């Protein structure tokens, strides 16, 4: 049933016809149309269903405040739910579907909810789904979730690019209506850096929606002139299709630019949307006003629209919702809708005006002091029932109704930082109050200046005053004249006696619901909102909040400002998650850090594991190995019997230099460093100030005033931050400098009995690596491969004779290849993090699992390391009584009594005879591995008083998986407890 509701004129390009589909039906529109205007022009009023009652709905508005006409746009990975048809710019091939209905928009079975509206009142869910309790999760919630919600996603990946950007300006002008354009012209001509942003794709605001807004020139023509001038200025950036969605601290605004939403597919390589962070010195909110509906019985039928929207469709888009339109209003402004429609040949059977003294309008009848008390038409309006002043009722046949209860300043961005609107009794609306975001000013209708003339002047004046603040001289731009009179309006919020009279269209909140909330004492506005869900839909109540406030005010007998006010929070309109994510999606969600030998490891078919942002080789499978354990066991055995090489570049490395470097390390480490000789390395344990073990590593003294500190991979950034805190905030008098060199050096552990022989092949001959000259814990600056500078540390995490060798990062790949080549004669093996882990558990070295943020030096068996003779971070509180009880947890080794059993990591330890419950917990397992040397599963864990319980048998339980293993407490040093190997 397609009818032609296209009128003459308008800002559409009739030379470019665009084909599109809605719910599978084909239509055509023109360039410059929105989806809503094109559908209206094609005679389609029904565009959606409401959230709760599934009531048939058409567009209420012609802008971003739209509560009803929400559709799914596009399909596949590009499908976008809950798009407002009123702002969706038409393009050729646009494909839209209605949502929240089944099986079709015309026949929606869930509309049965409407019949049960007496039960589905405010608080329905809270009251109904109370019992039985168990039903909530299993039955009620899944059903409610299925029934609720609006549009849907396909779950496919969005193929498009989203971007982020940064902009700076002197003056950000938000809204390109009369006030915004006047401000931008004024500031632009003064030479200021200006950004003019508007959510619409056509600048002009109401200027292009009205006939005769200006006296000497058409609004549209003046907008074209102004736009051309602004576009010619290098200091002005015009940003149509850009919604400023949030006002943040210190003049920062968030904006989303829809670069390609008006195209079928974004241009190759260009983003669909861009989120801009705009740093403004001053910002002018010129966001205009939003018209408010009137609440009357069945005021939500398709065809019932705001009067200003009907006028905008007719004037800008040359579309009318129907051939016969009744107007219902409490103000003169809506009379213009009747005049504009009649000028286009549309029938206006009558204007129903609530005011007894309403003026006459030529060409139609004004029913003064009358109200609309009901409407008819299931899928679209067919008639309205009018209660006349004389007391009779009269039916008017019409297919559309243009209503207006007045206009509210569009306050959104003024409230984002606790700004509280104040009531203006002259215009019966809230206007911006105190507490505007820093640097923000408001002009035009957004500030309660409700005429075009005032908007133009206040915009220009605001720009002058903003620039004056910044020391930029400016004079008001010459402006066109506008002689519109202030709107005469008498407040009228709802028709008395109406019940199913919609306030919030999207969330189906009616006058009756507000009355119920009042009856149940939810009279605070915040409670009212949450109890009825008023204003909590995707439109944030832009058209509904004031109406509900007015009804509540009437019920409580208070004035509207006494009842409360409305606050808006960011975002102004919904922002897609894709835009907020920008490019940080998929593999770019966070940076990926690769070690210099990554490519080499890939060539060896290494399996990688993510460690923070790093990718580390986990193990290196060889041909024929089908289980990771085979690879790991081989790597361990080969290292322990000959030599293995492991990339340890990811360890944090911090260079500490200065006359007080040793004193500084004394401060950050629990153990002493003052007496560490040059050329030696020492293990260091850091505590937190609360005495808990924080991180461990080594510090190598390369010179009297030069140390190299290593940290664990995970804590590299945090330890550095903390060390800078100590340096700058606690020891400001010390002569010491820090720099993170993690990425400057590639570092490899070379471990195993043949490690010295291997290194001797690449270390330049003048450096003696013999045990006498370069013993365990020695360090030094050397050269390798004929002059390449390197650092050598004789330290061992594996427990073997071992070294760590570091070269500048760019030689890392070459060194790895060289080491493996030189190691061929020893059958040197590369090993990954798994073998590294197995060997450190065999050796009883603590790692992240043991330094888990709850354990102290005492727990770790390192209690004696904490010096009492010096001040260091954490020493005072580490001596707290509660952390030093005789039964404190102690790090021990655990071995299954039956070697066939595996030690479950994370399991808890219980006494052999005794209950298994939390009250009798003896400790827990932190690390477990299979030791190929011992041919047994082994573990490390903490046991109460464990140092004195060697040989005791405990039950290791994992109730989640029903595991129970008998284990023996042993020394944590499973391998080479005397340390003979590493000193060899």
């Amino acid at each position: 049933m397609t009818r032609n509701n296209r009128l003459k004129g308008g800002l559409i390009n009739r030379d470019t016809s665009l084909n599109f589909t809605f719910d599978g039906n084909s239509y055509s529109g023109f360039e410059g149309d929105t989806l809503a205007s094109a559908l209206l022009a094609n005679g389609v009023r029904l565009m959606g269903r409401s959230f709760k009652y599934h009531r048939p709905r058409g567009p209420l508005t012609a802008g971003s405040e739209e509560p009803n006409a929400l559709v799914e746009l596009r399909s596949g990975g590009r499908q976008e739910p809950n798009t407002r048809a009123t702002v969706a710019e038409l393009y050729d091939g646009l494909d839209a579907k209605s949502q929240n209905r089944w099986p079709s928009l015309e026949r929606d079975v869930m509309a049965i909810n409407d019949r049960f509206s007496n039960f589905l009142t405010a608080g329905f869910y809270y009251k109904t789904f109370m019992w039985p309790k168990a039903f909530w999760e299993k039955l009620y919630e899944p059903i409610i979730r299925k029934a609720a919600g609006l549009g849907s996603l396909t779950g496919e990946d969005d193929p498009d690019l989203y971007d982020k950007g940064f902009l700076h300006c002197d003056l950000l002008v938000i809204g390109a209506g009369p006030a915004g354009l006047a401000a931008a012209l004024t500031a632009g001509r003064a030479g200021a850096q200006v950004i003019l942003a508007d959510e619409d794709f056509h600048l002009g605001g109401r200027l292009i929606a009205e006939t005769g807004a200006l006296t000497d020139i058409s609004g549209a023509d003046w907008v074209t002139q102004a736009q051309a001038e602004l576009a010619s200025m290098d200091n002005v950036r015009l940003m149509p299709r850009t919604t400023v969605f949030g006002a943040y601290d210190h003049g920062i605004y968030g904006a989303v630019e829809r670069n390609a939403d008006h195209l079928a597919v974004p241009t190759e390589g260009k983003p669909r949307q861009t989120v801009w962070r705009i740093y403004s010195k001053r910002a002018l909110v010129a966001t205009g006003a939003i018209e408010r509906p009137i609440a009357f019985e069945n005021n939500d039928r398709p065809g019932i629209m705001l009067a200003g929207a009907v006028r905008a469709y007719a004037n800008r888009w040359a579309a009318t919702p129907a051939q016969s339109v009744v107007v219902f209003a409490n103000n003169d402004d809506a009379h213009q809708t009747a005049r504009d429609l009649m000028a286009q040949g549309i029938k206006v059977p009558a204007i129903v005006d609530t005011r007894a003294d309403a003026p006459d309008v030529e060409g139609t009848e004004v029913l003064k002091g009358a109200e609309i008390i009901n409407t008819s038409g299931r899928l679209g309006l067919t008639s309205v029932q009018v209660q006349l002043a004389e007391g009779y009722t009269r039916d008017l046949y019409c297919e559309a109704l243009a209503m207006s209860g007045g206009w509210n300043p569009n306050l959104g961005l003024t409230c984002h930082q606790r700004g509280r609107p104040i009531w203006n009794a002259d215009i019966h609306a809230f206007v911006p109050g105190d507490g505007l975001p820093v640097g923000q000013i408001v002009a035009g209708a957004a500030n309660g200046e409700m005429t075009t003339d005032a908007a133009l002047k206040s915009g220009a004046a605001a720009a002058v005053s903003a620039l004056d603040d910044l020391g930029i001289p400016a004079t008001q731009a010459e402006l066109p004249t506008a002689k519109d009179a202030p709107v005469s309006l008498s407040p009228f919020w709802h028709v008395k006696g109406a019940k199913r009279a919609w306030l919030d269209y999207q969330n189906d909140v009616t006058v009756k619901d507000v009355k119920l909330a009042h009856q149940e004492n939810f009279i605070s506005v915040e409670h009212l909102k949450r109890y009825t869900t008023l204003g909590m839909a995707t439109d944030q109540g832009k058209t509904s909040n004031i109406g509900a406030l007015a009804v509540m005010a009437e019920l409580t007998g208070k004035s509207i400002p006494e009842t409360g006010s409305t606050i808006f929070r960011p975002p102004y309109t919904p922002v897609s998650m894709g835009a907020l994510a920008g490019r940080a999606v998929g593999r770019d969600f966070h940076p990926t850090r690769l070690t210099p030998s990554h490519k080499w490891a890939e060539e060896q078919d290494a399996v990688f594991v993510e460690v923070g942002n790093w990718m580390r080789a986990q193990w290196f499978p060889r041909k024929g190995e089908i289980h990771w354990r085979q690879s790991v066991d081989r790597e361990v055995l080969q290292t322990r019997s000959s030599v293995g090489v492991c990339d340890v570049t990811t360890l944090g490395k911090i260079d500490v230099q200065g006359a007080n470097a040793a004193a500084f390390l004394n401060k950050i480490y629990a153990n002493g460093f003052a007496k560490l000789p040059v050329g030696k390395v020492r293990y260091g344990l850091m505590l937190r100030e609360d005495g808990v073990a924080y991180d461990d590593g080594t510090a190598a003294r390369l010179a009297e005033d030069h140390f190299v500190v290593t940290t664990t991979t995970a804590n590299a950034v945090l330890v550095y931050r903390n060390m800078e805190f100590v340096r700058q905030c606690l020891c400001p008098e010390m002569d010491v400098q820090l720099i993170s060199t993690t990425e400057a050096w590639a570092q490899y552990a070379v471990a195993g009995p043949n490690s010295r022989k291997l290194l001797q092949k690449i270390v330049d001959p003048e450096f003696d690596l013999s045990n006498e000259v370069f013993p365990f814990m020695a360090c030094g600056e050397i050269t390798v491969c004929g002059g390449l500078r390197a650092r050598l540390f004789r330290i061992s995490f594996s427990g073997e004779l071992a070294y760590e060798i570091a070269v500048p990062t760019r030689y890392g790949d070459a060194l790895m290849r060289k080491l493996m080549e030189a190691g061929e004669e020893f059958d040197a093996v590369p090993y990954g993090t798994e073998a590294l882990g197995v060997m450190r558990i065999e050796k009883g070295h603590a790692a992240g699992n043991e330094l888990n943020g709850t354990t102290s030096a005492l727990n770790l068996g390192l209690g004696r390391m904490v010096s009492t003779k010096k001040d260091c971070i954490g020493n005072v509180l580490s001596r707290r009584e509660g952390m030093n009880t005789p039964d404190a947890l102690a790090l021990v080794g655990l071995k299954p009594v039956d070697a066939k059993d595996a030690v479950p990591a994370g399991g808890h330890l219980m006494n052999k005879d005794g209950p298994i419950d939390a009250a009798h917990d003896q400790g827990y397992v932190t690390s477990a591995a299979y030791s190929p040397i011992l041919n047994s599963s082994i573990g490390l864990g903490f046991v109460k008083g464990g140092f004195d319980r060697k040989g005791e048998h405990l039950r290791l339980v994992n109730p989640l998986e029903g595991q129970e293993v008998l284990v023996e407490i042993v020394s944590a040093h499973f391998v080479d407890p005397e340390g003979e190997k590493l000193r060899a």
Partner: protein
Amino acid sequence: MIINHPLLGPRDAQEFTYLGDATLINRPDWQSDNAAQAFHDYLYLRDNPAGEHRELWFHEQGDRSWLVVTRNTVTHEILSVEMARDVAKAAAAERSAQ
């Protein structure tokens, strides 16, 4: 937010990490008689004012300065920004003068 770094000028707060109350600069003397109590208070007791607050920010993605930022926690207005090292030095000088 924008933090006006004493050396680098206005920088976006995103470049910084936040630590908290600047009283962390005033670490107690480890040898005092009531050291345990003093460290307890230093570590665990904080004022949480609605209003002016001196707090520590670290310019992690910048020059790695620790700054003492005096900020109104209600309005987010930043009243002053100092190098934490200068603040710590002044505090130390004051302590030794006593």
